């Protein structure tokens, strides 16, 4: 079965969600959102999904703190974060480049990252631009740190990094990424060339398995229709839905 790059990424993320009871998805995250909904479908609806800014894919009704209170209590098993920069210790930067505050590049801001990264057990870093611009040795501004000193309350943290080139796991004790697999059509060399930080890898890394056909069918059917709620443009472009 042929598939689009987006569909591969959704398949990769869906596998990372296995066993998670409640997945939350932040703003501007159509690929993670689709993966979360696919995960829910695979669980026969047992898994809960909260998609921020959707009309029907969430139950937040206690104000701007609702999601964060749920997360603080451990009621959210997985969440997605990204970064204008991500470094080798899984620090993420959502603020900007250059010397803070008057930076030469300014992004939106840190949103919930400096909190959710600490309390959600399985935070999946997702960035579909894997370059030396985004994957840096050290971020210019730490919106949220990848690891914390001993004694700092931190039930959560980085679990994996998914990019357009490959899948990485993160070892919290070592504060270091490890390449798990290279996406079809890409290579270890390409990843090394495009990564600004050091990471562990096998000389002959696995290739990321393609999307499972039955999941792809599900994705293009019911999931595509659902993700059109918060992301109509994405559903139209990728799945020709809506």
């Amino acid at each position: 079965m042929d598939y689009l790059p987006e569909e591969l990424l959704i398949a990769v993320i869906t596998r990372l969600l296995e066993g998670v009871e409640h997945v939350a998805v932040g703003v501007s995250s159509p690929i993670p959102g689709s993966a979360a909904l696919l995960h829910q479908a695979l669980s026969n609806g047992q898994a809960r999904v909260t998609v921020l800014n959707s009309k029907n894919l969430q139950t937040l009704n206690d104000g701007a703190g609702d999601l964060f209170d749920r997360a603080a209590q451990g009621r959210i098993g997985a969440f997605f974060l990204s970064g204008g920069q991500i470094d080798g210790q899984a620090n993420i930067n959502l603020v900007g480049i250059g010397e803070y505050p008057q930076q030469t590049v300014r992004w939106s801001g840190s949103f919930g990252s400096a909190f959710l990264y600490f309390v959600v057990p399985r935070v999946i870093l997702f960035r579909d631009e894997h370059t030396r611009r985004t994957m840096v040795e050290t971020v210019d501004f730490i919106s949220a740190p990848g690891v914390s000193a001993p004694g700092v309350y931190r039930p959560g943290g980085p679990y994996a990094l998914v990019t357009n080139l490959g899948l990485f796991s993160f070892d919290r004790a070592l504060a270091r990424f490890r390449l798990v697999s290279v996406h079809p059509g890409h290579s270890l060399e390409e990843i090394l060339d495009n990564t600004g930080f050091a990471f562990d890898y096998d000389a002959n890394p696995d290739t990321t398995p393609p999307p499972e056909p039955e999941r792809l069918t599900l994705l293009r059917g019911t999931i595509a229709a659902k993700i059109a709620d918060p992301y109509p443009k994405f559903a139209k472009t990728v799945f020709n839905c809506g």
Partner: protein
Amino acid sequence: MSEISIERLIADIPNGARIAVPTSRSGVAMAASRALIDRGVRDLHLVTIPTAGIQADMLIGTGCVAVAETAGITLDEFGQAGRFVAAVKAGEIRLMDSTCPAIVSGLQAGEKGVPFLPIRGLIGSDLLVNRSDYRVIDNPMAASGDPIVLVPAIVPDIALFHAPMADKFGNVWIGKMRELMTMAHAAKQTLVTVEQIVDGNLMEDELRAPATIPEMFITNVAKAKNGAWPLGLDGCYEADAQALADYANAARSDQGFSAYMAQAPAKAAQ
């Protein structure tokens, strides 16, 4: 409460006021913000609860804002908030970057009349490094060392937002936008625009009373049909994607923004 105009509603917001506004999906008083811009307010300390979009960008672009206390300013799917980004690069506004739940907790501290609330996370971030008003203490409830951040209470001078309806007594129904309740509770003054002013008393309506801000928290209400335009209002209307895209495009440059503000309508056709 007698009916007043949008202009009257915002007339007494002083220069330098600490003004709290909700996220782009939670009832933004766009028409009132345009009136505030037209009035030429200056030096606002904007507190976004906890993020903002076109409203903040417009206020910043027109030079109304001195301080941005925020977890993020973005035009969402329409891209970066051009005037915010330009103002940061030019050093024209003072930043108080934070993270969403820290702002919410600060507001809740204001609501509860306590000087601070504790919050997990933040330790090791550069947000914390740059927020000299945040404190780290050792959790007094823990047996061994357990550092935890305290955020100071946020008590806005003004909370400004748009809601579906008010009654003639000044009670305001907010539906699921619960943060508006927190804002009104925490702020010294609360100014609200609404789609409609209804007969009867919302506090006596069994179904609406639970999501109604009692009039004692409301300073003034003005009617503003489509008052959130070009943003949407939950249960009333969707965002105007074309208008938002036009704005995002215009706001990429000084000239584009100036032209937009000069030409684009202040409100949707009523």
